């Protein structure tokens, strides 16, 4: 299986088949998954079968989709870029969606043990576009471009 095919399988099972997804990872307490800021590993880091089943269930709620766009292969690891869509959710981060479909990009790094099982997942979603689509006044001016005028920010 190529790395991009593997990444597609990883993304597909995350959304559609939790049992098959679980099989991609090493044994309980031999892996860690971090998909949000870690204030405390208890609650923010998935490392057991129970946490896997409970915390990843939200990905299979039928409202989210993941489409792999790019894969960087390394020695015992891959970096995956993917498109993310939330459709049909009432709210995102507590903000009402008013029926909007939300889209953005995301990244996932996976490291493997010698048996090819995932021992580390680090996932970060670019939430700025999602929050902008929900009305937050987030700006990302291109301040690095030659001739950029800070006064243009008002």
């Amino acid at each position, binding site marked *: 299986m190529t790395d991009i095919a593997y990444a597609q399988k990883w993304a597909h099972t995350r959304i559609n088949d939790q049992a098959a997804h679980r099989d991609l990872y090493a044994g309980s307490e031999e892996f860690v998954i971090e998909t949000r800021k870690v204030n405390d590993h208890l609650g923010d880091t998935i490392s057991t079968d129970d946490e896997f089943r*409970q*915390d990843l269930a939200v990905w299979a*709620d039928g409202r989210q989709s993941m489409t792999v766009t790019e894969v*960087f292969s390394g020695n015992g690891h891959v970096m995956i870029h993917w498109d993310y869509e939330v459709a049909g959710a009432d709210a*995102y981060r507590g903000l009402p969606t008013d029926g909007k479909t939300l889209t953005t990009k995301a990244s996932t790094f996976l490291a493997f043990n010698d048996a090819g099982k995932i021992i580390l997942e680090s996932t970060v*979603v670019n*939430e700025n576009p999602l*929050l902008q689509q929900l009305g*937050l006044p987030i700006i990302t001016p291109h301040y690095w471009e*030659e001739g950029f005028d800070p006064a243009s920010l008002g």
Partner: protein
Amino acid sequence: MNYAFAVKWLKAFRESADAICELYADDFVFEDPILDQYQIRDKGDLGRIFVLYANKDRENGLGVHNFRIRGYEGDHRSGLIRWEWTPEDCANFIGIDVKDKPFFAQGHTFHVYNEEGKIVRESSWWDSGSIMHDVGVPGVAPTPFPVAEPALA
């Protein structure tokens, strides 16, 4: 590369734009999608991206940007740097008032290195959603979707 290189990379953030640019090959691609920075290939652009992080003036509102490494996973040709960022004395962040509102964020950066150890590809991502909650933007929840409380065995 390794943990030591990651520390060198983040110390260069604090030193100067020139110091950070020296760590990249002439032929490089830099991306930080959270700041809408895609396919940056010019050293001039790269320097202007990083000049913010070398700010040492606590009065100008740009903030002083403290970074810490959480870990490095990979080898000498590619890998992931996991880091933490704590800005101090920052007045406005991506359009949001953060004056006197302490926060920190975590992120990860994937690097590909050439044979000379220079960065040829960078893909940086960080958790901006939690910042919106932490600085008190009205209505923003701590997580994208509700999560169950952790249970102690």
